[in-house]
């Protein structure tokens, strides 16, 4: 059976959920061979094996943290040369997409980004994507070279599928471009304790209707009652009520959770572009004519300052 390279996104050995979802998709088209780079790479092997990786290729070097992106491309290319896979799958993070893109150029392949599903086809893997603010669904494939495909979080279930997970050291030679962009400083983002926005199963977002930074705690309380991430519309971010890193939409982050709750968000096309692929959509808005209501599975026309706290209390009561 053909091998499929899966690029592992991990933090000091803790594998992030989108990578485990990639393993589910990789098993549909071949045998997953995982590539884990940087500090803690070997520590990823157990969980990767549990989810179907037949082999885990690991490498660590100071270059991975001291320089931007290219050293990781060199390593992924070394894995590609060693394995000759049928496809290369990478999580659709900002960095993941850049790594995939450069690899595709080097191996003369086409690239598909932000796939929301993947299946085996007669002419190689077929990727589902959302287009035009998710008003269209397309099915595409890579027609030249080895398919390089990046996949959005929440596109597949995480499934146990125990495999060998043999760990092998990957020999990497860094090219001249590897040290081109130096990382001269790094400030970790302060953890809120909430799930990462793009990966969260539930996202609770606030918009113009929240009417001030001081009111966002209402949105946060609802999010915390559900174990959700907090999002914000561009209007709320531009007004300085919530950080840009939480912006959902065309110029912010694209999310695809199981549940999306929009509070005080009218649903302009730019916002819809970032959330329309959510599985279940709920909205709370005073304006019954707000376009967001065209998208919802359940909508409440009402004042979010009354509805959201009541919802939060009810969730807490039900969860006991």
């Amino acid at each position, binding site marked *: 059976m053909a091998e499929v390279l899966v690029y592992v996104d991990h933090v000091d050995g803790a594998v992030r959920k989108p990578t485990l979802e990639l393993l589910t998709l990789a098993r549909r088209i071949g045998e997953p061979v995982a590539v884990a780079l940087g500090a803690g790479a070997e520590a990823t092997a157990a969980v990767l094996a549990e989810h179907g990786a037949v082999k885990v290729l690991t490498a660590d070097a100071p270059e991975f943290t001291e320089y*931007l992106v290219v050293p990781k491309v060199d390593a992924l290319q070394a894995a590609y040369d060693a394995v000759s896979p049928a496809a290369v799958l990478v999580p659709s993070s900002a960095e993941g*997409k850049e790594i995939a893109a450069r690899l595709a150029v080097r191996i003369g392949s086409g690239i598909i980004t932000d796939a929301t599903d993947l299946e085996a086809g007669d002419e190689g893997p*077929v990727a589902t994507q959302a287009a035009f603010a998710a008003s269209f669904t397309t099915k*595409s494939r*890579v027609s030249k070279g080895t398919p390089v495909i990046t996949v959005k979080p929440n596109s597949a279930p995480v499934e146990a599928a125990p495999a060998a997970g043999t760990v092998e050291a990957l020999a990497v030679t860094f090219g001249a471009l590897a040290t081109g962009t130096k990382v001269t400083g790094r400030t970790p983002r302060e953890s809120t304790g909430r799930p990462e926005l793009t990966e969260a199963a539930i996202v609770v977002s606030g918009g113009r209707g929240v009417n001030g930074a001081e009111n966002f705690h209402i949105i946060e309380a609802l999010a915390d009652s559900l174990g959700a991430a907090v999002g914000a519309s561009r209007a709320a971010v531009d007004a300085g009520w919530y950080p840009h890193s939480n912006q959902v939409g065309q110029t912010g982050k694209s999310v695809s959770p199981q549940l999306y709750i929009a509070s005080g968000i009218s649903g302009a096309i730019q916002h819809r572009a970032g959330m329309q692929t959510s599985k279940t959509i709920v909205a709370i808005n005073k304006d019954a004519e707000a376009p967001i209501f065209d*998208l919802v*599975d359940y909508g*409440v026309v009402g004042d979010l300052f009354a509805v959201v706290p009541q919802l939060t209390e009810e969730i807490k009561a*039900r969860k006991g």
Partner: protein
Amino acid sequence: MSLRIVVCVKYVPDATGDRQFTEDLTVNRDDVDGLLSELDEYAVEQALQIAEEADDAEITVLTVGPEDAKDALRKALSMGADKAIHVEDDDLHGSDVMGTSLVLAKAIEKAGYDLVITGMASTDGTMGVLPAILAERLGVPQVTLLSEVKVEDGTVTGRRDGDTASEQLEASLPALVSVTDQSGEARYPSFKGIMAAKKKPVESWDLSDLDLESDEVGLEGSWTAVDSAAQRPARTAGTIVKDEGEGGKQLAEFLAGQKFI
């Protein structure tokens, strides 16, 4: 020595219009107005600011696209760019990101550059991979997704705000920079700028000017194939209730029914 800046911009269908695919599954450009991609305005703005700081700089704005794409170039020229290059060729129709990036890289090399600046993504395709691909093709450092950028003494520095950390980056010129919508509000063209733009040179190049063959680009030469594009079925009308004092509880009941609680 003059600092040569090339800004890559894209002419995109207005996102607020009713965007559709054509029969060959490429983007229908006839029924929706086009404009300079909003995210590219930030690239033009940063180029202008870098040029203002430099002793001597020249900004060339570059696009690949049909005749109408000149509108995007005019907008950038009216903001203050010095000249424009329009790569237009019938054989470019349907090019994917690999094809388009090949054309851009050839055009950038032909134009000559010290610094290439792009937006973080287009507002139509929204892939966000073109900057990295261009850096790879040009063989220069990528200094991408910057919310702050500065160029001084042949060095570009900037801040990249990622999901888990904020990074300070540094690279020597020549380099490729991409900027986010956090890099600084783009200026509006002034009346004077709009009038001046009419006199600024716009060069037109085709594939032969770039030593490219038609089968390397366009729909035929594309590295990817779209097999189908289906309009998402309209969502079956959801339940909408008016809050009469129990709206939060009713919503909780719905969420419990969907097993979210």
